[in-house]
């Protein structure tokens, strides 16, 4: 009946023991034979269930531990591609808090130490250790499956994984403290995107993200000057861009686009590609960029995308046309330093100097990164306010 003789035998014995305990107290049941069978069956089911749970949990924990030991030790993913892919999806499961997903991914796949992750995200090491322990415990106790989701779940789950990688990249690209760029985080995100792309070569958004990261990262050397000060896109020395990374990014983007399943990362990569492809700032195809931001706004609407679109329109058609579009976003973006910086820039171009200085001051108050603050301060001084 139960398929496992040992368990059945043990269960019957347990049922007899239970009978010895309860019958003298509660009286002998009407049908003692049936009572024994029912009790034995319940015991056996309980037992099987517990053993099954324990087996499953132990397995997950073992794999996690093994992969943690392996993680990031080498770039070669050919050895255990399935395990890595399963691990990415497990670490980025939507049932985990986003901070936990980022930390787990960096720890188990990026091979960063707890101390390094703590430093990257500006939290004390014990806090980060706690966060990792809690996340692993949840994977274990809540039964988060260690697997690549079945194909019907993939469309819902891939974007979450990409978001984690993009978050890691962005923390490196515009660090909230210290030097502007923390290359090691950017490079880690690129490495992980590469792994994911190699494992899921038919997902155009994965390749789109990899292309986007490469194109963004190609400007790293030109984004600050010798003194560590911020250099805006239009003032950057384009010969210092990493043209190898740009070529690779453009090639990957082309491949992704041929699949004809556009998504937000492919569109952002296309925007980055237009910047990368312009030999001089004045060669930038701003109308096309504005149109792509329009596409992006439809695919993943957000006020920040609208802000970028407004800026692109200002660049394409003139600041007097862009400014009202930027200012319309003041309600939602009032706490965002780049909103005030963008507005200030347009006011400056329109020669409305005192208003521009005022807006730069707001941006300065809100900006967290010292390099960005230094830049904004420079602009305020320049306007003589």
């Amino acid at each position, binding site marked *: 009946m139960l398929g496992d003789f040992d368990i059945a035998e043990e269960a019957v014995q347990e049922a007899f023991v*239970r009978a010895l*305990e309860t019958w003298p107290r509660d009286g002998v049941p009407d049908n003692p034979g049936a009572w024994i069978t029912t009790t034995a069956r319940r015991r056996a089911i309980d037992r099987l269930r517990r053993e099954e749970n324990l087996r499953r949990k132990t397995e997950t924990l073992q794999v996690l531990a093994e992969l943690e030991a392996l993680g990031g030790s080498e770039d070669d993913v050919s050895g255990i591609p399935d395990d890595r892919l399963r691990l990415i999806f497990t670490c980025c*499961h939507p049932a985990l808090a986003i901070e936990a997903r980022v930390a787990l991914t960096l720890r188990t796949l990026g091979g960063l130490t707890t101390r390094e992750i703590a430093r990257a995200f500006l939290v004390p090491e014990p806090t980060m250790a706690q966060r990792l322990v809690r996340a692993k415990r949840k994977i274990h106790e809540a*039964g*988060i499956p260690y697997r690549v989701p079945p194909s019907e779940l993939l469309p819902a789950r891939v974007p979450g994984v990409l978001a984690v990688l993009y978050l890691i990249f962005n923390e490196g690209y515009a660090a909230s403290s210290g030097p502007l760029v923390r290359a090691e985080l950017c490079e880690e995100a690129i490495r992980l995107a590469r792994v994911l792309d190699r494992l899921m070569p038919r997902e155009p958004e994965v390749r789109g993200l990899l292309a986007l990261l490469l194109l963004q990262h190609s400007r790293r050397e030109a984004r600050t000057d010798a003194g560590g000060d911020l250099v805006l896109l239009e003032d950057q020395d384009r010969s210092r861009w990493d043209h190898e990374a740009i070529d690779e990014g453009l090639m990957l983007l082309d491949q992704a686009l041929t699949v004809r399943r556009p998504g937000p990362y492919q569109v952002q990569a296309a925007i980055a590609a237009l910047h990368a492809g312009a030999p001089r700032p004045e060669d930038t195809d701003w109308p096309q960029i504005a149109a792509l931001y329009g596409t992006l706004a439809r695919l993943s609407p957000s006020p920040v995308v609208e802000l970028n679109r407004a800026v692109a329109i200002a660049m394409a058609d003139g600041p007097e046309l862009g400014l009202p579009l930027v200012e319309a976003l003041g309600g939602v973006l009032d706490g965002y330093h780049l909103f005030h910086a963008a507005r200030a820039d347009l006011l400056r171009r329109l020669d409305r100097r005192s208003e521009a200085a005022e807006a730069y001051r707001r941006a300065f108050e809100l900006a967290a990164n010292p390099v960005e603050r230094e830049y904004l301060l420079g602009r305020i001084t320049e306007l003589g306010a």
Partner: protein
Amino acid sequence: MQYMLLIYGDEKVRPSDLPPEAMQQDMQAWFQYSDWLREQGWMVAGDALHDTDHATTVRVRGGETLTTDGPFAETKEQLGGYYLLECENLDQALEAAARCPGALYGSIEVRPIEAFDAPEGG
């Protein structure tokens, strides 16, 4: 693994306040959902609870039993029912929660059942 789906919602919004046809539809949705859970082989148990108007809270303090009318805590959304499921993993439990009719207007909290390896006994 076993999971409990705790179904929270605003109990002031009562199905009985709906027009009869809509109420019928709502009931139908819940019946169909329970059937689907059974077909999946996940259903262990499931019930709706009476409103918190009918709740009684009991505490024992210093050997004394304190019985009060009403729920343990006043909240905006109240526990209105539950399902106990036996599934393979959290993804299945989350899928079950997303299909629950209550998810359309309330929230479903998914909690794994903790299994103890306590010594068996009387």
